[in-house]
């Protein structure tokens, strides 16, 4: 099984006619994602040409797209100035799962968008995230399909390309995945490590979890405590940013050590104290997963 989405998920793409939106929609459709519609304000009534002769209708609003196609999830590729509005529109239209890929959304915009999504019981993945992929079932976002393969490992990460690096090693070592989730590099994200861990705990096919964290905030520490109290399957961790200087943002808006909190050392300790084995190098992750699975 997979978490949050699967091959039956009916997906709309907000920003489908843009440069990134159109490129990734075609990639998603080629992978097998059920993209049922696109939304671009002012371009309703057009048709979006997918790969292999496929096409989907474009609507002016998410509400119209939902009414017309019965969509239940959305992927957002709209520019930062409009992205929080796009999340609120999708949540207001009743969609239950929203992936926001956009990087650079003002944080105060996100305080309101997250509040509305919570009020509507809508799960937001991201923003500033690569999305979610369930090997051979569906992909929402930008994770390259050819690096994943089906298998027993669940993966959760705050990063994009570092996720690819880790998944690449897992796949090459014959350790496939149930679902890989990029939760995003922003300080305010809709889906946390703990949310994903709880979902993986409910999935009988997930036999081990990989958590890839980084400096900044306390999400890893909370996840470690949750694992120790609630999870029976093994977890392997990795933390990026051991060499990051304090007080400096390292690319991701959320990757910043404030005072003495949010350091890689603190997070590594939280993992280890709660029975999570921590890889020192990305290449070690697969070996630790194999050992913990006894495979």
């Amino acid at each position, binding site marked *: 099984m997979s978490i949050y989405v699967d091959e039956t998920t009916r997906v709309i793409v907000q920003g489908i006619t843009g440069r990134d939106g159109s*490129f*990734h929609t075609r990639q998603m459709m080629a992978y097998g994602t059920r993209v049922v519609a696109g939304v671009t304000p002012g371009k309703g009534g057009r048709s979006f040409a997918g790969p292999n002769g496929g096409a989907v209708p474009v609507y002016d609003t998410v509400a119209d797209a939902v009414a017309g196609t019965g969509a239940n999830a959305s992927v957002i590729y709209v520019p*930062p*100035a409009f992205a929080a509005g796009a999340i609120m529109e999708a949540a207001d239209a009743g969609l239950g799962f929203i992936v926001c890929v956009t990087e*650079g*959304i*003002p*944080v*105060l915009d*996100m*305080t*309101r968008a*997250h*509040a*509305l999504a919570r*009020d509507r019981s809508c799960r937001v993945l991201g923003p500033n995230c*690569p999305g979610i992929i369930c090997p051979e079932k569906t992909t929402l976002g*930008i*994770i*390259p399909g050819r*690096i994943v393969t089906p298998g027993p490992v669940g993966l959760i*990460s*705050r*990063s*994009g*390309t*570092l*996720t*690819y*690096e880790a998944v*690449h090693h897992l796949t090459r070592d014959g350790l496939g995945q149930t679902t890989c989730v990029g939760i995003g*590099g922003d*300080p*305010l994200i809709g889906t946390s490590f703990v949310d994903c861990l709880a979902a993986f705990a409910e999935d009988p096919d997930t036999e081990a979890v990989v958590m*890839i964290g*980084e*400096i900044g*905030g*306390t999400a890893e520490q909370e996840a470690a405590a949750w694992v120790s109290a609630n999870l029976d399957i093994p977890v392997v961790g*990795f933390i*990026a*940013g*051991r*060499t*990051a*200087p304090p007080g*400096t*943002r*390292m*690319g*991701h*808006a*959320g*990757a910043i050590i404030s*005072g003495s909190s949010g350091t*890689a050392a603190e997070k590594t300790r939280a993992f280890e104290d709660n029975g999570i084995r921590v890889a*020192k*190098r*990305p*290449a070690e992750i697969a070996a630790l997963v194999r050992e913990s699975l006894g495979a």
Partner: protein
Amino acid sequence: MDLHEYQAKELFRAAGMAVNPGEVADDPAGVRALAEKYGGRVVVKAQVHSGGRGKAGGVKLAADAGEAARHAQAILGMEIRGLTVGRVLVSPTEDIATEAYAGILVDREGQCPVFMVSAEGGVDIEEVAATNPDAIHKLRVDPRYGLMPHQVWGLATRLYDDPALARQAARILTRLYGAFTANGASMAEINPLISTGGGEVKAIDAKVSIDDNELFRRPAIEAMRDPASETEADAKARAAGLSFVKLKGNVGCCVNGAGLAMATMDLVKYYGGEPANFLDIGGSSNPDKVVAALEIITSDPEVKVILFNIFGGITRCDDVARGIVEAVGRLGFSIPLVIRLTGTNEELAREILADAGLAAVASMDEVVQEAVRVAG
């Protein structure tokens, strides 16, 4: 983006807050004139983006205009944590009875702005948080409703027992929240918020950081950027849309993606090297970005080797390879390159590099070990 104290005070005054007067000058004569205007007894404060200005000797009291000018002479041009002081703020001294603290941040866990106030102001608030956390009162503000009057009153009465002072504080706190949200701040702080012997409450220091993601829609704030507060390399990286942080080592790093870039630096250290920088070229694979990245890295005289670690997803390896070849041709530097490219269009990238006499390896461990070896 951090604002200078005098800029933060301008925003606060525009929001209608009680702030002590003050103006900036960039030479001792200007400081003397301001001191005379304020009646002689003034405080002269260095305007740099750094904490610890007082400890560094960047904040001085003067009894008269002559002394103010002498302080300005010493402070202007002084270095505080690597930053040269180009301007000082001159303000009349205040008759301080009490010092409090008020600040607003974005709370990651609560996903909302959080107000923090303490009657113990004028000191490092992180220290208060560590030694006497009960002295700090926190209030999460629900972004759906904003700051409500009873909440502000609750905060103000934590600061002052005297209702006359609490009423003034409530006005200031309300406007502080207004200035925070209206300017897209990620942090706004008054430390200290003072009460005077005459029963007035006002801000005598101000600290504001603006969320970088807000700047595209706030040209007036963007115009407050102080070019002197930024190195040439930082300015160049910002203009090219690159995330760049200078570090102290000699292994120059060029990576796509922030997480992978951090992991690459960590691996350099793991294998016994020292990274010279963090640099994320981002998701797009525009060859111009690669050229800009190499310009920045090669301008650091410490750099002995340049390490590329590219995991192609959206980023196409052949585009990065073209950028590398173009940059080498255009910039003509002699620093050795070690390159790792894997993912989208990897084979094509290897051909492009091979035609230019460059080689690439496939694994991150290999390329980092090679870089550390070359750097010596």
